[in-house]
């Protein structure tokens, strides 16, 4: 997949350079792009390390479980079937709370465990309605602190690296709400068909 995207980008730039008569600048741009990536990585390194360090402390402090327990009532409403099973409910709340805290390494295994458990409960290789709902909640980013983006902003000299937070929160709420609404709507449409 990425191979095609990469080749597509290169072919597109050569074609555009031919049309615009800018072939002379391509090689220089390639070299400059490569070295700008290293510069970006270096200036990102500190902030990224700090956030990963902080994420580990959140994990060790048991914040994921605490947040998960707080969210259980909400999950009983969103996932009525899966939440009857304590294991599935634990994986679900663990996945979403790890996502909220930005602990990607912890969120993915728990999300996979949740889907596996839901599959065992429902049987069959078809995605259940509740699995689709979980996927939507995972593909719409709900991370409370977008640390990587903030690190990029900081490395480029932004005034307040985190001052995009209110915008990010509102956007995330809107996109998760739209995703859940779309899932519910498509559920009804596909059932009628």
């Amino acid at each position, binding site marked *: 997949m990425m191979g095609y995207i990469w080749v597509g980008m290169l072919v597109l730039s050569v074609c555009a350079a031919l049309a615009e008569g800018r072939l002379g600048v391509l090689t220089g741009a390639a070299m400059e792009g490569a070295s700008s990536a290293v510069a970006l990585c270096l200036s990102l390194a500190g902030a990224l390390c700090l956030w990963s360090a902080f994420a580990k402390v959140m994990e060790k402090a048991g914040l994921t479980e605490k947040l998960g327990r707080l969210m259980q009532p909400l999950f009983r409403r969103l996932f009525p079937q899966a939440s009857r099973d304590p294991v599935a409910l634990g994986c679900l709340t663990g996945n979403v709370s790890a996502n909220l805290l930005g602990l990607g390494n912890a969120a993915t295994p728990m999300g996979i465990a949740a889907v596996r458990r839901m599959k065992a409960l429902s049987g069959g290789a078809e995605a259940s309605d509740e699995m689709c709902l979980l996927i939507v909640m995972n593909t719409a980013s709900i991370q409370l602190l977008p640390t990587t983006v903030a690190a990029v902003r900081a490395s480029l000299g932004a005034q307040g690296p985190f001052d*995009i937070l209110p915008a990010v929160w509102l956007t995330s709420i809107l996109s998760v709400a739209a995703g859940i609404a779309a899932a519910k709507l498509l559920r009804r449409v596909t059932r009628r068909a």
Partner: protein
Amino acid sequence: MLDLLIPLLLIGVSVFALARRQDVYSALLEGGLGGLKLLASIAPALVVLLTAVHMLRASGAIELLTRLLAPVSRLAGIPAETLPLVLLRPFSGSAALAVGADLMTVYGVDSLIGRTAAVMLGSTETTFYTISVYFGAAGIKKTRYAIPAALIADLTGFVAASLTARLF
């Protein structure tokens, strides 16, 4: 308020962890090492992709694409400059990060385009990758309406980011 958020969060969580008798310092070091590993894992992708992005930018392809798609993006209320980011985001996190960093550099990190790119990156996910990981690992073959629903959420995120970046 926002100025205090991050420092207070750092203190609060660390104190909470200390109170639960956790070795906070070694957790910090362990996590920090994880951060370096994460950086090492995305660095090659960023090099390869930023090379391509710079070639696209220098060749005029990005300008061309932006001008071509401007009517579509105007309809959705999304700045045309951010369209390369919108198109790559569902497929590749590092490609989107590369394009986003390029936009922030070219237009200015605190410019409207730069902020819109940042909000987009912060409030959307690598949809197709996530779906393939979750359903792949669990052996789900028929994804039913998961992809359209997730893409509707993405599109809403992009449109909303274009609004909220202006708002706040």
